[in-house]
Protein backbone atom coordinates (compact mmCIF):
# COMPACT_ATOMS: atom_id res chain seq x y z
CA UNK A 1 0.00 0.00 0.00
CA UNK A 2 1.20 3.48 -0.81
CA UNK A 3 2.24 5.37 2.23
CA UNK A 4 0.28 8.60 2.15
CA UNK A 5 2.05 11.46 3.77
CA UNK A 6 0.23 13.79 5.99
CA UNK A 7 -0.25 16.96 4.00
CA UNK A 8 1.11 18.85 6.93
CA UNK A 9 4.42 17.06 6.53
CA UNK A 10 5.03 17.65 2.85
CA UNK A 11 2.19 19.92 1.94
CA UNK A 12 3.96 22.07 -0.59
CA UNK A 13 5.59 19.20 -2.35
CA UNK A 14 2.27 17.40 -2.69
CA UNK A 15 0.55 20.53 -3.82
CA UNK A 16 2.99 21.30 -6.59
CA UNK A 17 2.95 17.74 -7.88
CA UNK A 18 -0.82 17.69 -7.94
CA UNK A 19 -1.08 20.88 -9.94
CA UNK A 20 0.42 19.19 -12.96
CA UNK A 21 -0.96 15.70 -12.64
CA UNK A 22 -4.39 14.51 -13.62
CA UNK A 23 -6.32 13.46 -10.55
CA UNK A 24 -6.74 9.71 -10.60
CA UNK A 25 -10.22 9.78 -9.09
CA UNK A 26 -13.66 10.95 -10.03
CA UNK A 27 -16.33 12.55 -7.92
CA UNK A 28 -19.93 11.30 -8.05
CA UNK A 29 -22.90 13.02 -6.43
CA UNK A 30 -25.04 10.69 -4.32
CA UNK A 31 -28.53 11.80 -5.30
CA UNK A 32 -31.94 11.02 -3.85
CA UNK A 33 -33.93 8.07 -5.18
CA UNK A 34 -36.27 10.53 -6.88
CA UNK A 35 -33.33 11.98 -8.75
CA UNK A 36 -31.53 8.78 -9.60
CA UNK A 37 -34.34 6.35 -10.33
CA UNK A 38 -36.01 5.67 -13.69
CA UNK A 39 -39.22 7.33 -14.78
CA UNK A 40 -42.39 5.95 -13.23
CA UNK A 41 -45.29 5.73 -15.67
CA UNK A 42 -49.04 5.88 -15.18
CA UNK A 43 -51.89 5.40 -17.64
CA UNK A 44 -53.92 8.29 -18.93
CA UNK A 45 -56.71 8.90 -21.39
CA UNK A 46 -55.78 10.78 -24.55
CA UNK A 47 -57.85 11.68 -27.60
CA UNK A 48 -56.90 12.53 -31.16
CA UNK A 49 -57.69 16.07 -32.23
CA UNK A 50 -59.22 15.66 -35.65
CA UNK A 51 -59.81 19.33 -36.26
CA UNK A 52 -56.64 21.25 -35.50
CA UNK A 53 -58.41 24.61 -35.49
CA UNK A 54 -60.43 23.69 -32.41
CA UNK A 55 -57.35 22.88 -30.31
CA UNK A 56 -57.18 25.98 -28.15
CA UNK A 57 -60.90 25.91 -27.35
CA UNK A 58 -60.71 22.20 -26.47
CA UNK A 59 -57.65 22.66 -24.26
CA UNK A 60 -59.43 25.44 -22.39
CA UNK A 61 -62.64 23.51 -21.87
CA UNK A 62 -61.08 20.18 -20.96
CA UNK A 63 -58.49 21.74 -18.67
CA UNK A 64 -61.32 23.38 -16.78
CA UNK A 65 -63.00 20.00 -16.30
CA UNK A 66 -59.86 17.94 -15.65
CA UNK A 67 -57.13 20.31 -14.46
CA UNK A 68 -54.56 17.46 -13.99
CA UNK A 69 -53.57 18.78 -10.61
CA UNK A 70 -50.42 17.11 -9.40
CA UNK A 71 -49.41 16.43 -13.02
CA UNK A 72 -48.50 19.97 -13.93
CA UNK A 73 -45.37 18.68 -15.65
CA UNK A 74 -47.45 17.03 -18.40
CA UNK A 75 -48.12 19.01 -21.55
CA UNK A 76 -51.77 18.87 -22.49
CA UNK A 77 -51.24 18.43 -26.24
CA UNK A 78 -48.61 16.57 -28.20
CA UNK A 79 -47.85 16.43 -31.88
CA UNK A 80 -48.68 12.95 -33.06
CA UNK A 81 -45.66 10.71 -33.05
CA UNK A 82 -46.96 8.51 -35.87
CA UNK A 83 -46.38 10.38 -39.12
CA UNK A 84 -48.90 8.21 -40.96
CA UNK A 85 -51.61 9.14 -38.47
CA UNK A 86 -54.72 10.81 -39.90
CA UNK A 87 -54.70 13.38 -37.07
CA UNK A 88 -51.85 15.76 -36.28
CA UNK A 89 -52.39 16.28 -32.53
CA UNK A 90 -53.34 14.33 -29.44
CA UNK A 91 -54.64 15.67 -26.16
CA UNK A 92 -54.62 14.37 -22.58
CA UNK A 93 -57.97 14.19 -20.84
CA UNK A 94 -57.30 12.70 -17.42
CA UNK A 95 -55.39 9.96 -15.65
CA UNK A 96 -56.91 6.49 -15.82
CA UNK A 97 -58.48 5.26 -12.61
CA UNK A 98 -57.74 1.83 -11.17
CA UNK A 99 -59.60 -0.82 -13.18
CA UNK A 100 -59.67 1.29 -16.31
CA UNK A 101 -56.42 -0.10 -17.64
CA UNK A 102 -58.14 -2.92 -19.51
CA UNK A 103 -59.16 -2.33 -23.10
CA UNK A 104 -62.64 -3.71 -22.51
CA UNK A 105 -63.24 -1.21 -19.72
CA UNK A 106 -62.22 1.71 -21.92
CA UNK A 107 -64.56 4.66 -21.74
CA UNK A 108 -65.91 6.32 -24.81
CA UNK A 109 -65.51 10.03 -25.32
CA UNK A 110 -69.09 10.74 -24.38
CA UNK A 111 -68.69 8.71 -21.20
CA UNK A 112 -65.55 10.61 -20.21
CA UNK A 113 -67.10 13.98 -20.81
CA UNK A 114 -70.69 13.15 -19.93
CA UNK A 115 -72.46 16.04 -18.19
CA UNK A 116 -69.40 18.22 -18.73
CA UNK A 117 -69.53 21.62 -20.42
CA UNK A 118 -67.34 20.50 -23.31
CA UNK A 119 -68.17 20.65 -26.99
CA UNK A 120 -66.66 17.39 -28.24
CA UNK A 121 -66.71 18.39 -31.85
CA UNK A 122 -63.35 17.77 -33.50
CA UNK A 123 -62.25 14.98 -31.13
CA UNK A 124 -61.69 11.32 -31.98
CA UNK A 125 -62.22 8.32 -29.70
CA UNK A 126 -60.07 8.08 -26.54
CA UNK A 127 -57.19 5.66 -26.09
CA UNK A 128 -54.84 4.86 -23.20
CA UNK A 129 -51.29 6.14 -23.09
CA UNK A 130 -48.41 5.88 -20.59
CA UNK A 131 -47.36 9.21 -19.12
CA UNK A 132 -44.63 10.06 -16.56
CA UNK A 133 -46.06 10.13 -13.03
CA UNK A 134 -43.63 12.73 -11.67
CA UNK A 135 -41.74 15.71 -13.06
CA UNK A 136 -38.29 14.74 -14.36
CA UNK A 137 -35.51 16.03 -12.10
CA UNK A 138 -32.45 15.20 -14.18
CA UNK A 139 -31.73 15.39 -17.89
CA UNK A 140 -31.57 11.61 -18.13
CA UNK A 141 -35.05 11.37 -16.61
CA UNK A 142 -36.30 14.12 -18.92
CA UNK A 143 -35.08 12.31 -22.03
CA UNK A 144 -36.87 9.17 -20.92
CA UNK A 145 -40.01 11.00 -19.79
CA UNK A 146 -40.55 12.90 -23.02
CA UNK A 147 -40.29 9.72 -25.07
CA UNK A 148 -43.62 8.76 -23.47
CA UNK A 149 -45.38 12.13 -23.38
CA UNK A 150 -44.06 15.70 -23.58
CA UNK A 151 -43.22 17.11 -20.16
CA UNK A 152 -41.96 20.35 -18.73
CA UNK A 153 -38.42 20.22 -17.38
CA UNK A 154 -36.98 22.70 -14.97
CA UNK A 155 -33.44 21.56 -14.74
CA UNK A 156 -31.77 21.89 -11.37
CA UNK A 157 -28.62 23.63 -12.56
CA UNK A 158 -26.75 22.64 -9.44
CA UNK A 159 -27.54 18.95 -9.71
CA UNK A 160 -26.96 19.06 -13.46
CA UNK A 161 -23.47 20.43 -13.09
CA UNK A 162 -22.80 17.93 -10.32
CA UNK A 163 -23.85 15.09 -12.62
CA UNK A 164 -21.74 16.29 -15.52
CA UNK A 165 -18.79 16.69 -13.17
CA UNK A 166 -18.65 20.45 -13.61
CA UNK A 167 -19.65 21.39 -10.09
CA UNK A 168 -16.10 21.52 -8.82
CA UNK A 169 -13.16 23.24 -10.39
CA UNK A 170 -9.81 21.58 -10.62
CA UNK A 171 -8.71 23.79 -7.78
CA UNK A 172 -11.61 22.58 -5.63
CA UNK A 173 -10.65 19.00 -6.35
CA UNK A 174 -7.06 19.57 -5.37
CA UNK A 175 -8.30 20.94 -2.05
CA UNK A 176 -10.62 17.95 -1.61
CA UNK A 177 -7.72 15.65 -2.25
CA UNK A 178 -5.66 17.43 0.38
CA UNK A 179 -8.37 17.00 2.99
CA UNK A 180 -9.02 13.39 2.09
CA UNK A 181 -5.30 12.66 2.27
CA UNK A 182 -5.41 13.92 5.81
CA UNK A 183 -8.29 11.54 6.53
CA UNK A 184 -6.30 8.68 4.99
CA UNK A 185 -3.32 9.66 7.10
CA UNK A 186 -5.47 9.64 10.24
CA UNK A 187 -6.80 6.21 9.28
CA UNK A 188 -3.24 4.92 9.03
CA UNK A 189 -2.36 6.41 12.40
CA UNK A 190 -5.39 4.68 13.89
CA UNK A 191 -4.47 1.40 12.25
CA UNK A 192 -1.02 1.60 13.79
CA UNK A 193 -2.76 1.75 17.16
CA UNK A 194 -4.74 -1.35 16.32
CA UNK A 195 -7.90 0.50 15.27
CA UNK A 196 -9.94 0.05 12.14
CA UNK A 197 -8.30 1.98 9.31
CA UNK A 198 -10.98 4.64 8.88
CA UNK A 199 -10.22 8.34 9.07
CA UNK A 200 -12.20 11.57 8.94
CA UNK A 201 -11.63 15.30 8.74
CA UNK A 202 -14.03 18.20 9.41
CA UNK A 203 -13.40 21.36 7.43
CA UNK A 204 -14.93 24.83 7.60
CA UNK A 205 -15.12 25.70 3.89
CA UNK A 206 -15.69 29.39 4.62
CA UNK A 207 -12.26 29.76 6.16
CA UNK A 208 -10.65 26.65 4.65
CA UNK A 209 -9.73 25.60 8.16
CA UNK A 210 -9.36 21.98 9.26
CA UNK A 211 -11.34 21.88 12.50
CA UNK A 212 -10.92 18.23 13.44
CA UNK A 213 -8.93 15.20 12.35
CA UNK A 214 -9.90 11.83 13.77
CA UNK A 215 -9.77 8.12 13.21
CA UNK A 216 -11.88 5.21 14.25
CA UNK A 217 -11.36 4.62 17.99
CA UNK A 218 -13.82 1.81 18.54
CA UNK A 219 -12.78 -0.78 21.09
CA UNK A 220 -14.36 -3.05 23.65
CA UNK A 221 -14.46 -0.13 26.05
CA UNK A 222 -16.32 2.04 23.54
CA UNK A 223 -17.63 0.31 20.44
CA UNK A 224 -19.42 3.43 19.15
CA UNK A 225 -16.40 5.64 18.56
CA UNK A 226 -16.54 5.47 14.78
CA UNK A 227 -14.39 8.01 12.95
CA UNK A 228 -17.38 10.28 12.24
CA UNK A 229 -18.53 10.23 15.86
CA UNK A 230 -14.96 10.99 16.95
CA UNK A 231 -14.82 14.00 14.63
CA UNK A 232 -18.18 15.33 15.77
CA UNK A 233 -16.94 15.27 19.35
CA UNK A 234 -13.61 16.84 18.36
CA UNK A 235 -15.51 19.73 16.77
CA UNK A 236 -17.40 20.12 20.06
CA UNK A 237 -14.05 20.13 21.86
CA UNK A 238 -12.91 22.88 19.51
CA UNK A 239 -15.93 24.83 20.71
CA UNK A 240 -14.83 24.31 24.29
CA UNK A 241 -17.05 21.34 25.15
CA UNK A 242 -17.17 17.74 23.98
CA UNK A 243 -17.42 14.45 25.82
CA UNK A 244 -14.55 12.08 25.19
CA UNK A 245 -10.89 12.08 25.98
CA UNK A 246 -8.69 11.26 23.00
CA UNK A 247 -5.37 11.88 24.72
CA UNK A 248 -4.17 8.36 24.01
CA UNK A 249 -4.80 8.94 20.29
CA UNK A 250 -2.48 11.80 19.28
CA UNK A 251 -3.69 11.68 15.68
CA UNK A 252 -7.13 12.82 16.86
CA UNK A 253 -6.85 16.58 16.97
CA UNK A 254 -9.00 19.69 16.83
CA UNK A 255 -8.39 23.36 16.31
CA UNK A 256 -9.85 25.57 19.01
CA UNK A 257 -12.44 28.03 17.82
CA UNK A 258 -13.29 29.54 21.15
CA UNK A 259 -10.96 32.54 20.95
CA UNK A 260 -11.51 33.24 17.30
CA UNK A 261 -12.92 36.57 16.31
CA UNK A 262 -16.28 35.63 14.84
CA UNK A 263 -16.19 38.57 12.43
CA UNK A 264 -13.25 36.95 10.60
CA UNK A 265 -15.18 34.00 9.31
CA UNK A 266 -18.26 36.07 8.64
CA UNK A 267 -16.35 38.51 6.50
CA UNK A 268 -14.92 35.77 4.31
CA UNK A 269 -18.19 34.59 2.91
CA UNK A 270 -20.98 36.90 3.87
CA UNK A 271 -24.42 35.49 3.51
CA UNK A 272 -23.48 31.87 4.10
CA UNK A 273 -25.83 29.60 5.95
CA UNK A 274 -23.42 29.59 8.81
CA UNK A 275 -23.61 33.29 9.37
CA UNK A 276 -27.34 33.36 9.68
CA UNK A 277 -27.37 30.31 11.91
CA UNK A 278 -24.51 31.30 14.14
CA UNK A 279 -25.34 31.83 17.74
CA UNK A 280 -24.77 34.65 20.16
CA UNK A 281 -21.18 33.60 20.78
CA UNK A 282 -20.40 33.81 17.07
CA UNK A 283 -19.99 30.06 16.79
CA UNK A 284 -22.17 27.98 14.52
CA UNK A 285 -24.67 25.47 15.84
CA UNK A 286 -22.57 22.29 16.18
CA UNK A 287 -21.41 21.50 12.60
CA UNK A 288 -23.58 23.88 10.57
CA UNK A 289 -21.86 24.85 7.34
CA UNK A 290 -19.02 22.38 7.80
CA UNK A 291 -17.82 19.59 5.51
CA UNK A 292 -16.80 16.08 6.46
CA UNK A 293 -14.23 14.04 4.58
CA UNK A 294 -14.31 10.39 5.55
CA UNK A 295 -12.52 7.46 3.94
CA UNK A 296 -15.56 5.16 4.02
CA UNK A 297 -19.29 5.73 3.70
CA UNK A 298 -20.75 6.29 7.19
CA UNK A 299 -23.05 3.75 8.86
CA UNK A 300 -26.64 4.51 9.93
CA UNK A 301 -25.57 5.80 13.33
CA UNK A 302 -22.93 8.14 11.91
CA UNK A 303 -25.15 9.30 9.03
CA UNK A 304 -27.95 10.27 11.41
CA UNK A 305 -25.41 11.87 13.75
CA UNK A 306 -24.47 14.09 10.80
CA UNK A 307 -28.13 15.04 10.31
CA UNK A 308 -28.36 15.97 13.98
CA UNK A 309 -25.10 17.94 13.67
CA UNK A 310 -26.37 19.89 10.61
CA UNK A 311 -23.37 19.06 8.44
CA UNK A 312 -23.42 20.77 5.02
CA UNK A 313 -21.51 18.32 2.82
CA UNK A 314 -19.97 14.89 3.13
CA UNK A 315 -17.26 13.51 0.87
CA UNK A 316 -16.35 9.88 1.16
CA UNK A 317 -13.93 7.61 -0.61
CA UNK A 318 -15.66 4.28 -0.97
CA UNK A 319 -19.03 2.77 -0.18
CA UNK A 320 -19.68 0.54 2.86
CA UNK A 321 -21.89 -2.57 2.76
CA UNK A 322 -24.36 -1.14 5.31
CA UNK A 323 -23.70 2.47 4.35
CA UNK A 324 -26.43 5.01 5.00
CA UNK A 325 -25.37 7.75 2.56
CA UNK A 326 -26.05 5.92 -0.67
CA UNK A 327 -25.79 2.16 -0.20
CA UNK A 328 -28.56 0.95 2.14
CA UNK A 329 -30.14 4.32 2.84
CA UNK A 330 -29.87 7.88 1.61
CA UNK A 331 -30.44 9.52 4.93
CA UNK A 332 -29.08 12.82 3.61
CA UNK A 333 -31.90 13.20 1.08
CA UNK A 334 -34.94 12.35 3.21
CA UNK A 335 -37.66 14.97 3.09
CA UNK A 336 -39.13 13.70 6.38
CA UNK A 337 -36.02 14.57 8.36
CA UNK A 338 -35.31 18.14 9.45
CA UNK A 339 -31.95 18.53 7.71
CA UNK A 340 -30.57 17.49 4.33
CA UNK A 341 -27.04 17.69 3.02
CA UNK A 342 -24.98 16.97 -0.06
CA UNK A 343 -22.96 13.81 -0.43
CA UNK A 344 -20.22 12.99 -2.92
CA UNK A 345 -18.44 9.71 -3.39
CA UNK A 346 -15.17 8.69 -4.99
CA UNK A 347 -12.62 11.12 -3.56
CA UNK A 348 -9.23 9.36 -3.49
CA UNK A 349 -11.12 6.13 -4.05
CA UNK A 350 -8.06 3.94 -4.58
CA UNK A 351 -6.29 5.01 -1.42
CA UNK A 352 -9.43 4.68 0.67
CA UNK A 353 -9.92 1.24 -0.83
CA UNK A 354 -6.40 0.09 0.00
CA UNK A 355 -6.97 1.15 3.62
CA UNK A 356 -9.72 -1.43 3.87
CA UNK A 357 -7.61 -4.14 2.29
CA UNK A 358 -4.77 -3.40 4.66
CA UNK A 359 -6.89 -3.55 7.81
Amino acid at each position, binding site marked *: MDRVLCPGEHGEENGSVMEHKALPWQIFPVLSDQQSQGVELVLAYAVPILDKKKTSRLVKEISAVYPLEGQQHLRRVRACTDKASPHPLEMLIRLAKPGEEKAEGLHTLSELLADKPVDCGGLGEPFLVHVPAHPPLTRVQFEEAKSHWPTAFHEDKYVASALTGHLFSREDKVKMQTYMKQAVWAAQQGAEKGMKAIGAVVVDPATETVLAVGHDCRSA*SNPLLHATMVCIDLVAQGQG*RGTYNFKSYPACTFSPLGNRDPSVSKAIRAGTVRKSESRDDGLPYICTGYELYVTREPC*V*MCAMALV*HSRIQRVFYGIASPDGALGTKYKIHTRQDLNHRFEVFRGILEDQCCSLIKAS
Partner: protein
Amino acid sequence: MRLPGAGKPSPSRISSLVCPPSGGSPGNSSLGPPTFRRPFSSAWLPGFALSTLPLVRLASGCRGGMEETITAALTAPGVSVSAEEREAWMERAMHMAKEALENGEVPVGCLMVYNNEVLAKGRNEVNQTKNATRHAEMVAIDQVLEWCHRCGKNPTEVFEHTVLYVTVEPCIMCAAALRLMKIPLVVYGCQNERFGGCGSVLDIASADLPNTGTPFKCIPGYQAEEAVEMLKTFYKQENPNAPKSKVRKKECHKC
Protein backbone atom coordinates in the same frame (compact mmCIF):
# COMPACT_ATOMS: atom_id res chain seq x y z
CA MET B 1 -51.65 -12.79 37.71
CA ARG B 2 -51.06 -9.24 38.64
CA LEU B 3 -49.86 -8.62 42.11
CA PRO B 4 -51.36 -5.56 43.69
CA GLY B 5 -48.74 -2.90 43.91
CA ALA B 6 -46.04 -5.10 42.45
CA GLY B 7 -43.93 -3.53 39.78
CA LYS B 8 -43.89 -0.12 41.35
CA PRO B 9 -40.37 0.85 42.20
CA SER B 10 -39.90 3.46 44.80
CA PRO B 11 -39.88 6.61 42.76
CA SER B 12 -38.80 8.86 45.50
CA ARG B 13 -35.16 9.75 45.24
CA ILE B 14 -34.17 10.11 41.65
CA SER B 15 -30.51 10.22 42.52
CA SER B 16 -30.61 6.85 44.16
CA LEU B 17 -30.91 3.77 42.05
CA VAL B 18 -33.65 2.04 43.88
CA CYS B 19 -34.61 -1.57 43.95
CA PRO B 20 -36.19 -3.32 41.04
CA PRO B 21 -39.89 -3.82 41.06
CA SER B 22 -40.20 -7.57 41.14
CA GLY B 23 -38.21 -8.17 44.25
CA GLY B 24 -37.87 -6.57 47.59
CA SER B 25 -39.73 -6.49 50.82
CA PRO B 26 -41.68 -4.08 52.93
CA GLY B 27 -38.33 -2.99 54.25
CA ASN B 28 -37.64 -1.31 50.94
CA SER B 29 -40.06 1.43 51.66
CA SER B 30 -37.33 2.89 53.77
CA LEU B 31 -35.67 3.93 50.53
CA GLY B 32 -37.85 6.95 50.48
CA PRO B 33 -41.33 8.24 50.94
CA PRO B 34 -43.80 7.41 48.20
CA THR B 35 -44.31 10.73 46.56
CA PHE B 36 -44.97 9.78 42.95
CA ARG B 37 -48.34 9.27 41.33
CA ARG B 38 -49.09 5.74 42.39
CA PRO B 39 -48.58 5.02 46.05
CA PHE B 40 -45.89 2.55 46.95
CA SER B 41 -47.41 -0.58 48.34
CA SER B 42 -45.73 -2.63 50.98
CA ALA B 43 -48.09 -5.47 50.34
CA TRP B 44 -46.31 -6.85 47.31
CA LEU B 45 -44.94 -10.34 47.09
CA PRO B 46 -46.52 -11.46 50.32
CA GLY B 47 -45.27 -15.00 49.88
CA PHE B 48 -41.64 -14.08 50.31
CA ALA B 49 -40.00 -13.89 53.63
CA LEU B 50 -37.32 -11.27 53.92
CA SER B 51 -34.60 -13.86 54.40
CA THR B 52 -35.30 -15.62 51.10
CA LEU B 53 -34.60 -12.51 49.08
CA PRO B 54 -30.99 -12.26 48.03
CA LEU B 55 -30.00 -8.81 49.03
CA VAL B 56 -26.99 -7.93 46.92
CA ARG B 57 -24.87 -4.92 47.56
CA LEU B 58 -23.59 -4.34 44.07
CA ALA B 59 -23.54 -0.69 44.71
CA SER B 60 -20.68 -0.35 47.12
CA GLY B 61 -18.03 -1.61 44.76
CA CYS B 62 -19.32 -0.07 41.62
CA ARG B 63 -20.84 3.25 42.49
CA GLY B 64 -18.46 5.48 44.28
CA GLY B 65 -20.14 7.48 46.96
CA MET B 66 -23.73 6.76 46.06
CA GLU B 67 -25.36 4.76 48.77
CA GLU B 68 -28.02 2.44 47.57
CA THR B 69 -29.05 -1.10 47.98
CA ILE B 70 -29.72 -3.14 44.91
CA THR B 71 -32.07 -5.97 45.51
CA ALA B 72 -31.68 -8.62 42.90
CA ALA B 73 -34.59 -10.90 43.37
CA LEU B 74 -36.47 -13.20 41.03
CA THR B 75 -33.97 -12.44 38.27
CA ALA B 76 -35.44 -13.32 34.96
CA PRO B 77 -33.21 -15.26 32.60
CA GLY B 78 -31.99 -13.28 29.63
CA VAL B 79 -34.15 -10.24 29.27
CA SER B 80 -37.64 -11.62 29.61
CA VAL B 81 -39.32 -9.15 31.89
CA SER B 82 -42.87 -9.27 33.10
CA ALA B 83 -45.44 -6.70 32.15
CA GLU B 84 -45.45 -5.41 35.71
CA GLU B 85 -41.71 -4.84 35.66
CA ARG B 86 -41.89 -3.10 32.32
CA GLU B 87 -44.58 -0.80 33.54
CA ALA B 88 -42.73 0.01 36.70
CA TRP B 89 -39.47 0.83 34.95
CA MET B 90 -41.31 2.91 32.42
CA GLU B 91 -42.87 4.86 35.22
CA ARG B 92 -39.38 5.60 36.50
CA ALA B 93 -38.33 6.73 33.03
CA MET B 94 -41.41 8.95 32.78
CA HIS B 95 -40.54 10.52 36.07
CA MET B 96 -37.05 11.31 34.75
CA ALA B 97 -38.53 12.87 31.62
CA LYS B 98 -40.81 14.99 33.77
CA GLU B 99 -37.87 16.16 35.78
CA ALA B 100 -35.97 17.02 32.60
CA LEU B 101 -38.93 19.08 31.38
CA GLU B 102 -39.09 20.97 34.66
CA ASN B 103 -35.40 21.82 34.18
CA GLY B 104 -35.82 23.06 30.62
CA GLU B 105 -34.30 19.95 29.04
CA VAL B 106 -35.69 17.75 26.29
CA PRO B 107 -38.17 15.57 28.18
CA VAL B 108 -36.73 12.16 27.42
CA GLY B 109 -35.88 9.76 30.20
CA CYS B 110 -34.18 6.44 29.81
CA LEU B 111 -32.96 3.58 31.95
CA MET B 112 -30.74 0.64 31.13
CA VAL B 113 -31.64 -2.32 33.28
CA TYR B 114 -29.45 -5.39 33.62
CA ASN B 115 -30.36 -8.22 35.97
CA ASN B 116 -32.94 -5.98 37.65
CA GLU B 117 -30.34 -3.36 38.28
CA VAL B 118 -30.34 0.13 36.84
CA LEU B 119 -26.92 0.52 35.24
CA ALA B 120 -27.59 3.84 33.58
CA LYS B 121 -29.97 6.75 33.64
CA GLY B 122 -29.50 8.86 30.55
CA ARG B 123 -30.67 12.30 29.73
CA ASN B 124 -30.07 14.51 26.73
CA GLU B 125 -26.75 16.39 26.96
CA VAL B 126 -26.63 17.99 23.52
CA ASN B 127 -26.54 21.62 24.60
CA GLN B 128 -24.23 21.00 27.49
CA THR B 129 -21.60 19.22 25.36
CA LYS B 130 -22.19 21.00 22.01
CA ASN B 131 -22.29 17.51 20.58
CA ALA B 132 -25.56 16.76 18.81
CA THR B 133 -25.11 13.02 19.29
CA ARG B 134 -25.42 13.15 23.08
CA HIS B 135 -28.97 11.83 23.21
CA ALA B 136 -30.19 10.16 26.40
CA GLU B 137 -29.59 6.68 24.97
CA MET B 138 -26.02 7.46 23.92
CA VAL B 139 -25.29 8.92 27.35
CA ALA B 140 -26.76 5.80 28.97
CA ILE B 141 -24.66 3.49 26.78
CA ASP B 142 -21.54 5.29 27.96
CA GLN B 143 -22.67 4.92 31.57
CA VAL B 144 -23.12 1.18 31.13
CA LEU B 145 -19.69 0.93 29.50
CA GLU B 146 -18.22 2.79 32.43
CA TRP B 147 -20.01 0.49 34.85
CA CYS B 148 -18.61 -2.54 33.01
CA HIS B 149 -15.16 -1.03 33.21
CA ARG B 150 -15.45 -0.36 36.95
CA CYS B 151 -16.88 -3.77 37.73
CA GLY B 152 -14.62 -5.71 35.41
CA LYS B 153 -17.55 -6.98 33.35
CA ASN B 154 -17.51 -7.87 29.70
CA PRO B 155 -19.59 -5.18 27.94
CA THR B 156 -20.79 -7.58 25.25
CA GLU B 157 -22.19 -9.97 27.83
CA VAL B 158 -23.83 -7.15 29.79
CA PHE B 159 -25.44 -5.38 26.82
CA GLU B 160 -26.81 -8.64 25.46
CA HIS B 161 -28.88 -8.92 28.64
CA THR B 162 -29.81 -5.30 29.09
CA VAL B 163 -33.22 -3.76 28.50
CA LEU B 164 -33.61 -0.12 27.54
CA TYR B 165 -36.63 1.72 28.92
CA VAL B 166 -37.13 5.08 27.23
CA THR B 167 -40.07 7.46 27.14
CA VAL B 168 -39.72 8.24 23.41
CA GLU B 169 -38.94 5.96 20.48
CA PRO B 170 -35.16 6.05 19.87
CA CYS B 171 -34.09 8.11 16.87
CA ILE B 172 -32.40 6.60 13.82
CA MET B 173 -28.93 7.24 15.24
CA CYS B 174 -29.69 5.75 18.64
CA ALA B 175 -31.46 2.76 17.10
CA ALA B 176 -28.32 2.02 15.09
CA ALA B 177 -26.18 2.45 18.22
CA LEU B 178 -28.44 0.04 20.14
CA ARG B 179 -27.99 -2.47 17.32
CA LEU B 180 -24.23 -2.06 17.46
CA MET B 181 -24.32 -2.68 21.23
CA LYS B 182 -26.57 -5.72 20.65
CA ILE B 183 -29.21 -4.65 23.13
CA PRO B 184 -32.01 -7.19 22.67
CA LEU B 185 -35.08 -5.30 23.89
CA VAL B 186 -36.31 -1.71 23.95
CA VAL B 187 -39.47 -0.68 25.80
CA TYR B 188 -40.63 2.79 24.88
CA GLY B 189 -43.48 5.26 25.26
CA CYS B 190 -44.54 7.42 22.37
CA GLN B 191 -43.53 7.44 18.72
CA ASN B 192 -40.83 9.80 17.53
CA GLU B 193 -42.44 11.22 14.42
CA ARG B 194 -39.48 13.45 13.57
CA PHE B 195 -36.54 11.09 13.86
CA GLY B 196 -37.84 7.69 14.94
CA GLY B 197 -35.63 4.72 14.10
CA CYS B 198 -38.01 1.96 15.22
CA GLY B 199 -40.62 2.44 12.51
CA SER B 200 -41.70 6.09 12.50
CA VAL B 201 -39.21 7.35 9.91
CA LEU B 202 -37.08 4.26 9.33
CA ASP B 203 -37.16 0.84 10.93
CA ILE B 204 -33.53 0.42 11.88
CA ALA B 205 -34.54 -1.82 14.80
CA SER B 206 -35.48 -4.73 12.54
CA ALA B 207 -33.77 -3.80 9.27
CA ASP B 208 -31.55 -6.24 7.41
CA LEU B 209 -28.14 -4.72 8.17
CA PRO B 210 -25.71 -7.63 8.60
CA ASN B 211 -22.78 -5.32 9.38
CA THR B 212 -24.59 -3.18 11.93
CA GLY B 213 -24.91 -5.28 15.06
CA THR B 214 -28.10 -7.23 15.64
CA PRO B 215 -31.79 -6.30 15.33
CA PHE B 216 -33.71 -5.67 18.54
CA LYS B 217 -37.28 -6.06 19.68
CA CYS B 218 -39.49 -3.16 20.64
CA ILE B 219 -42.44 -2.92 23.00
CA PRO B 220 -43.98 0.49 22.27
CA GLY B 221 -46.84 2.42 23.77
CA TYR B 222 -46.12 2.69 27.49
CA GLN B 223 -47.78 5.90 28.71
CA ALA B 224 -47.43 7.20 25.21
CA GLU B 225 -49.92 10.03 25.62
CA GLU B 226 -48.17 11.48 28.61
CA ALA B 227 -44.79 11.30 26.84
CA VAL B 228 -46.21 13.10 23.81
CA GLU B 229 -47.74 15.79 25.98
CA MET B 230 -44.39 16.46 27.62
CA LEU B 231 -42.70 16.76 24.22
CA LYS B 232 -45.38 19.15 23.02
CA THR B 233 -44.96 21.28 26.11
CA PHE B 234 -41.21 21.36 25.54
CA TYR B 235 -41.40 22.29 21.88
CA LYS B 236 -43.83 25.08 22.68
CA GLN B 237 -41.11 26.56 24.85
CA GLU B 238 -38.67 26.22 21.96
CA ASN B 239 -35.05 25.21 22.24
CA PRO B 240 -33.01 28.42 22.46
CA ASN B 241 -29.88 26.55 21.35
CA ALA B 242 -31.25 25.17 18.09
CA PRO B 243 -30.65 27.11 14.89
CA LYS B 244 -33.51 29.37 13.95
CA SER B 245 -36.03 27.84 11.63
CA LYS B 246 -35.80 29.14 8.08
CA VAL B 247 -39.54 29.63 7.88
CA ARG B 248 -39.55 31.75 10.95
CA LYS B 249 -36.65 33.81 9.70
CA LYS B 250 -38.55 34.69 6.56
CA GLU B 251 -41.50 35.81 8.61
CA CYS B 252 -39.19 38.06 10.55
CA HIS B 253 -37.99 39.71 7.37
CA LYS B 254 -41.53 40.56 6.45
CA CYS B 255 -42.28 42.27 9.69
